[in-house]
């Protein structure tokens, strides 16, 4: 057994950390929320460094990498609340397996692509649709691409670029695409869980740092077991989430039969572990954590949003139970 990242993946994660740390100040998330900016680093920067094409085949101009390769990068983007999300890159790369021209445009950023959840005649709020110009959707069992009318709505977390879309044109890319669509959504759930892993990890670290410095009643608050145990529970959640994300990403690449179970488990766990991490971060900071100026609520907003995207915990827990009862655990 070797349930660990490879040296190349560790290097890629370190490189991604440097890139995201250098290109995404948390002030960007706040500015986007205030309507005074757009999510950083933005689509072009992500395309230029090659992150949008990690899982696009080399023949279509991508890196031909694995979902796990993408997940370790996505984790680093999640840590700084980067936008747009690599969820869309991962999901569109699956959907465009039969459309190499479009896949190439996804990878090099020349097409601003978003994937729509719900009916293409009026979608649910969909990730990074707000500034996209080409939309992929499922229409009566067929995979379609088209242009659309975009209605963003007031954001809870502006880094997600959520918008409702009504397609105004559509062409069929593949008939009978239900299975492909489902697999793409599972891969998307894994990458969303990976971004949540990075964000949850950062929220816990932020709270631990504060608990090591803030004093009350004569000593630092992290020495009180009431505070310490909250932080530990949040950290254990992050540690366990990492295991599920790796397993699910590995399954996407190497054990497709395990992907539905693993993706549902990772997404369900991510929803709750990230939410707990973010709420713990606010609580441990006390009053300052409840202010607009503090960064804690930026993570809290991401957690409250992500937990519901691509299916909430209720949906995924139900899927885990149904799959296991159906024999998915072997």
């Amino acid at each position, binding site marked *: 057994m070797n349930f660990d990242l490879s040296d190349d993946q560790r290097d890629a994660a370190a490189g991604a950390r440097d890139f995201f740390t250098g290109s995404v100040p948390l002030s960007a998330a706040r500015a986007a929320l205030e309507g005074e900016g757009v999510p950083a680093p933005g689509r072009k920067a992500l395309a230029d460094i090659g992150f949008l094409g990690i899982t696009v085949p080399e023949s279509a101009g991508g890196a031909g990498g694995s979902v796990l390769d993408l997940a370790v990068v996505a984790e680093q983007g999640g840590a700084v609340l980067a936008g747009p999300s690599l969820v869309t890159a991962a999901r569109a790369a699956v959907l465009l397996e039969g459309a190499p021209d479009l896949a190439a445009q996804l990878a090099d950023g020349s097409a601003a692509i978003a994937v729509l959840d719900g009916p293409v005649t009026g979608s649910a709020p969909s990730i990074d649709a707000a500034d996209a110009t080409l939309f992929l959707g499922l229409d009566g069992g067929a995979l379609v691409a088209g242009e659309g009318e975009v209605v963003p709505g007031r954001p809870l977390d502006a880094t997600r670029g959520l918008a409702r879309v009504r397609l105004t044109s559509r062409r069929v890319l593949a008939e009978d695409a239900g299975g492909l669509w489902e697999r793409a959504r599972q891969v998307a759930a894994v990458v969303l869980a990976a971004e949540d892993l990075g964000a949850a990890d950062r929220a816990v670290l932020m709270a631990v740092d504060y608990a090591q410095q803030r004093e009350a009643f004569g000593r630092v608050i*992290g020495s009180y077991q009431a505070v310490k145990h909250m932080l530990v529970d949040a950290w254990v959640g992050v540690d*366990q989430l990492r295991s599920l994300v790796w397993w699910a990403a590995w399954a996407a690449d190497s054990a497709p039969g395990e992907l539905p179970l693993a993706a549902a*488990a990772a997404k369900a766990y991510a929803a709750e572990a990230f939410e707990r991490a973010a709420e713990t971060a606010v609580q441990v900071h006390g009053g300052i954590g409840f202010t607009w100026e503090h960064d804690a609520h930026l993570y809290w907003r991401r957690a409250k949003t992500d937990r519901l995207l691509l299916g909430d915990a209720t949906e995924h827990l139900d*899927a885990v*139970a149904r799959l296991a*009862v159906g*024999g998915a*655990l072997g």
Partner: protein
Amino acid sequence: MDFDDTPEEASYRARVRSVLTDRAADLLHVAPGEPVDARSREAELRATQGVLAEEGLVGVTWPREYGGQGGTLVQQAIVSQELARARVPTLVNHIGIGMCGPTVIAHGSDDQRSRYLARLLRADDVWCQLFSEPASGSDLAALRTSAVRDGEDWVVNGQKVWTTLAHVSDFGILLTRTDPERPKHAGLTMFVVDMHAPGVTVRPLRQMSGGADFNEVFFDDVRIPDSERLGEPGEGWRVALTTLMNERVAIGGAGSDIGQSPEALAAHARERLPALDPERQALARQAVGRALVASLATRYTGYRRFTTLSQGGVPGPEASAGKLGGTAAARLVADAGVRLLGDDAVLGATADGDDTWQRAQAYVPGIAIAGGTDQVLRNILGERVLGLPSEPRTDKTAPFSTGGRR
């Protein structure tokens, strides 16, 4: 990344599997989750371990010079997995192999090693660990059982408790206080004690789950020769840490499940879900799904720790997270399992006498206490992994006789 055996691991596993098949007639087998009473099945349990020792499957990681196999932690994990797969119960001397023996190896004399270790591996002697006391559980270094030097012997008085297997044990490692005028950690000394010596009284304790796996042990003027001391007088805490570190290795785990497995819950749900009202089925699936996810999260986290071991690493304090997560998962799994029983959930067993899930439920509170309470584990993780300071303490420096107060 992969979950496969390496070629070496695969061939080792094949050898273990063929031994367990070839010797099946000489081994005790039990159904999954079936409780095994050490007292009533003592002879079979000892014989089973003897056979496995003969085949080189006991003390896998022990050095060869002490009768072990000089193997790796991965090989030990493979043996454990294959024993579970073959439905051979946990080795009767698991505490001796995992904790007492390694302590004797590290701190015992050559004479002690030659007298004890080979017999321990064959289960000719069963061992127990005499640490906890009525007034020192989580705070182990507060123990009061005294050992007073008298010529070539030490005279021991006091009481130990929660001692697993004491009722079938021949020897134990015993942590005592030999100098109450020194601070609590500095006045301790470790011994090997003969459990059949005059003055040793063992009384089984019945657990809330109904079974009796552990005991209270009384010491009344029990004489222990100085040659049975492990380590120097006053060094008992350091010796005990060896034992506890080995405990961490023993339970650090290769993703083994605490309590009922997710597979068992899934099979149970497959059988029981259709009998529930449709609306309740949806709610039950939520509970089952949540329990399975918690269980899988713990299992795959265990695989990460196991990978660290197989790369030659040692288990660090983060191993405590495995037990904390495993306990939480066991609680959810047991609860989901009981709820699936419908009306039978309020009874101690189903109409056909099956109490698998009720037993799992009653076992959970013990898991959350034994081998480090949830609260102590959170302190360990908070202080040693997250780097948070400990609560202020006065008991580390004051003489024990003052009650830890200056």
